[in-house]
């Protein structure tokens, strides 16, 4: 059952990645990047359940924090750039 959930998250990660590639403007890519960071945190959590090593929850939490930092960085330093076509 957890393997099915893992496959679901990987496929939704793939679909989210399509929006990163085709996004017309930088803002869509920002949105897709935010969604991808959440999906990959969930992927790490499900993986830690699947292979029964509880240490991966630290990896998931650390990754959630750092991708949140990247989101704020992107949101701030792209204000004066060309963000929306």
């Amino acid at each position: 059952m957890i393997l099915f959930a893992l496959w679901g998250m990987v496929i939704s990660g793939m679909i989210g990645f399509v929006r990163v590639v085709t996004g017309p403007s930088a803002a869509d890519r920002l949105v897709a990047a935010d969604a991808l960071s959440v999906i990959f945190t969930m992927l790490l959590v499900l993986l830690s359940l699947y292979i029964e090593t509880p240490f991966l929850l630290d990896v998931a939490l650390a990754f959630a924090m750092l991708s949140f930092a990247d989101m704020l960085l992107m949101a701030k330093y792209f204000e004066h750039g060309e963000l929306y076509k």
Partner: protein
Amino acid sequence: MSEPLLAFLYFFILLTAFVAVFLDDLLSSFISLSVTGVLMATVFALLRAPDVALTQAIINSGLITSLLLVAYSHTRRTPLPSGPCTACPSWLRWPLAALICFLLAVLLFRGMYSLAGERALETASTHFLAETLRETGALNVVAAILLDYRAFDTLGETTVIFAAVAGISLLLSGGKHVRSRQGLSFIVKRGMALLTPFLLLYAASILFLGHLTPGGGFQGGSVFATVAILICVVYGTGFDASRVSSKSKETLEVGGALLFVFIGLLGAAWGGGFLANLKGPFFPGTPGSLFSGGNMLFLNLAVGLKVGAGLSSIFYVMIKILEQEGEQ
């Protein structure tokens, strides 16, 4: 074991790598590069390497992507290079390079294929797995290797970080200290005030439990530096400079290095050789407890101080350049 899942993750890594390379828009290639890094961390976790997965996840999205975004937003006004290449005719450049790289790929695969014999633990690894608890008192074998069996190599690694930090602050120095108050919106500021203590606490837990669970000096220091970036970004560099001035960051960094060398000398003074752990004045303690790995806890603290202060001063210098450019 989940062969098809690993195969699909490898395919996903290659897909994001191709997108990162061949897409002209820089922002999407940066995002696909960070996705490649995360998928690498997932594959490392699947290949039973949680320590490396944690380091890859932290360094890739905490350091590489943040620096890439800061450098990219610094060069936003310059036009993207296009048009024919000046050095040599472009029809010669594309196919020739493609041919060379294809041959390289075939050669690499051929070489690795012949080496892919039956994998068994060599003598050194069996020794590490069997003797770590008795010889160093630490539970995390990888941290034991890094901080006890090869501690001198970790000292060399911290000097590499020291050189990188010195080089970057030399390159991007100059210009007055910018006291910009320009941060993000009010909601994010209040939210960050709520969130920052927990981030710092979690970074300290990664740092201090380095010898029990995956973690250690480098990972904890990088998370500390990321919190420093967040404060710079959310509250503006003026707020950050007044809280932790760059002078104190340098003293913290040098203090970390000196602490590392001092612990080594302490081991040597005790007659156990430079950086000696249990032969020196340190005791193993009960295996699961915090003070269990002899001098590993203090070595982790030293490395964490160094990496945290060094990386946050790198970020401060780079974001300061950005703020200055914003002022003009």
